[in-house]
């Protein structure tokens, strides 16, 4: 295996960051998680800027980063020489050299002259070659940092929020350049982002990290449509969770968001391998809701209204493919309705909920 193997524990002030990840040559892994989850710590450790407490980072048989031989009291030592040779990185915030022109920044260090010309052209920096960083906008500085990382041959490409501060079209073209370079060099690529769409668009695989732990790794589409645990479901954008019973009387958690819903397992926080995953069979299956309750709130959401109902007798939920679930008694159920319903009124809401429903 000549890919990147990350197996590390890194101390932080608030918690330890632990990561076990394998990235094959040419593979793109998106490391997705909320702010402060430890994404950048993982990346800095792979880059050799932060020594791990335990474990190691390997590229094939080569050691890139490991715990210091003895505990140094004399401050961080910077990247290990092994890290220098194969690792290209865009860090956040991007650190471009203020005393050098754009072109000198991109060509800095062990760059490949041919690639320098190529990325300057493709990232639209041609007109800025002789400009100093102090005359550039935030987005331009981001592109300079990106160009600098891509202007050299590498076996590991580390990207920390590489497209932040870029507008949507630029973001897309930059992503294409990164993908092309990653494939050309067959680089094991890790991108850190807190933007799920970006992670899905970029990654061959998606890893979800929260509070220092990798919660799940897998195919981006699968992970988002069938999150194994409630926390993963929360992180990938599900906004409501409903405790229900299936026809056999087992407890499940129904995760619902604007566009998807999913049964995550017998209870929240169940390990992914034990979660009885269940899916509706795609976004085309509407979720039917038959319930009677008191309207707790109702707010406008686009062309529809998001309501919460208090259902003392429980509610029956059924999907178009025939599966039926029953909510607990005295539970609150989110629903999307076509017209506003008055708050406080007892009423029967018979809502057929299309995939865009629910909240």
């Amino acid at each position, binding site marked *: 295996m000549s890919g990147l193997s990350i197996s590390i524990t890194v101390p932080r002030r608030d918690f330890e960051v632990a990561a076990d990840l394998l990235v094959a040559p040419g593979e793109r892994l998106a490391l997705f998680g909320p702010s402060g989850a430890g994404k950048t710590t993982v990346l800095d450790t792979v*880059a050799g800027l932060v020594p791990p407490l335990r474990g190691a980072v390997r590229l094939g048989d080569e050691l890139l980063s490991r715990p210091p031989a003895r505990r140094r009291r004399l401050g961080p030592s*910077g990247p290990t020489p092994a890290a220098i040779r194969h690792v290209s990185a865009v*860090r956040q915030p991007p650190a471009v*050299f203020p005393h050098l022109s754009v072109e000198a920044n991109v060509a800095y260090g062990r760059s490949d002259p041919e690639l320098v010309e190529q990325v300057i052209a493709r990232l639209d920096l041609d007109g800025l070659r002789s400009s*100093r*960083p*102090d*005359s550039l906008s935030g987005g331009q*500085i981001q592109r300079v940092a990106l160009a600098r990382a891509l202007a*050299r041959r590498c076996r590991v490409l580390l990207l920390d929020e590489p497209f932040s501060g870029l507008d949507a079209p630029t973001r897309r073209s930059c992503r294409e350049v990164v993908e092309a370079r990653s494939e050309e060099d067959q680089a094991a690529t890790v991108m850190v982002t807190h933007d799920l769409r970006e992670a899905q668009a970029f990654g061959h695989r998606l890893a979800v990290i929260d509070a220092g732990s990798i919660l799940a790794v897998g195919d981006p589409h699968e992970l988002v449509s069938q999150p194994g645990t409630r926390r993963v479901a929360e992180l990938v954008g599900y906004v409501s969770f409903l405790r229900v019973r299936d026809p056999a009387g087992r407890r499940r958690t129904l995760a619902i968001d604007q566009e998807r819903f999913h049964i995550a397992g017998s209870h929240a926080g169940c390990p992914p391998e034990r979660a009885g995953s269940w899916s509706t069979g795609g976004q085309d299956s509407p979720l039917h809701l038959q319930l009677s309750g008191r309207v707790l709130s109702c707010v406008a959401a686009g062309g529809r209204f998001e309501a919460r109902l208090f259902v003392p007798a429980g509610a029956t939920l059924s999907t178009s493919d025939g599966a039926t679930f029953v909510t607990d008694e005295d539970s609150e159920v989110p629903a999307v309705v076509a017209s506003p319903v008055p708050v406080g009124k007892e009423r029967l809401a018979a809502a057929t909920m299309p995939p865009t429903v629910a909240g």
Partner: protein
Amino acid sequence: MNPSIRRASTAVSLLATAVCWVILLAPLVELVAHLSVHEMSHAFSEPGSPGFGPLWRSLAASAIALAAIVVLGTPLAYLLARDRLPFPRVVETGLLVPLAMPPLVIGLLLIFLVGPSSPVGSHLNQDLFGLNTFYALVVAEFYEAAPYYVLAAYAAFAGVDRDLEHEALLLGDSRRAMLRRVTIPLAAPGLAVGLSMAWARAMGAFGAVLIVAYNPPGLPMAIDTGLQAFGLNGALPYAVLLVIAVLPLPLVSLLWSARARGRLAPGVAPGLL
């Protein structure tokens, strides 16, 4: 702010600046105005006058002292700025001691360090390196000037963003290349200011010099002996010489570093200015 209050505060600021300028620079103008070229040249050729010897001596001793300060002080300042020294606060305090100590006391202490009966001094060739030699002048100037450079260099290195150094290392630089291509260019304006302050301190060192190196005299000693022997007329020519010898480096480096700092300023969106 009320426009009239703003106008008044601007006027007060301008007035304060003008007063400071006059107080600081008027003596210099007086000094130059009181001397004619004829008097100056006469003063240096007068019998009993040490001539231009003190000028060359001061320039040479200060240049050597400054070279030693830069060679020894730059790594120290860098390690201090990067927290790579054990007990950094102790080291920092140690640097402040010579800065806070009266130069005369430094001179007295130097006698204990390099005097003929001291452990170090007894191993030195006293004719060449003992008290009242050229090298004693170098050592006295070193003690008076070194903290100014080291503390300024410390601040300059501390001001260099560590992320930029990490970036250079990640891009394939060795540590030496990183220092040469990133750290030192970015710290250069601060280093230049420290260097010129140390130069001015070394050239003007008097207190410690008076104790350990009064003869052969450098420029400050020549001013003192001129004053003792011939009064103001004997001292002023050397004072002018000292000012002329000291000022160009600080002025040039201050102007250069102000320009360089402007160039190195991080980009700020126009809307924020």
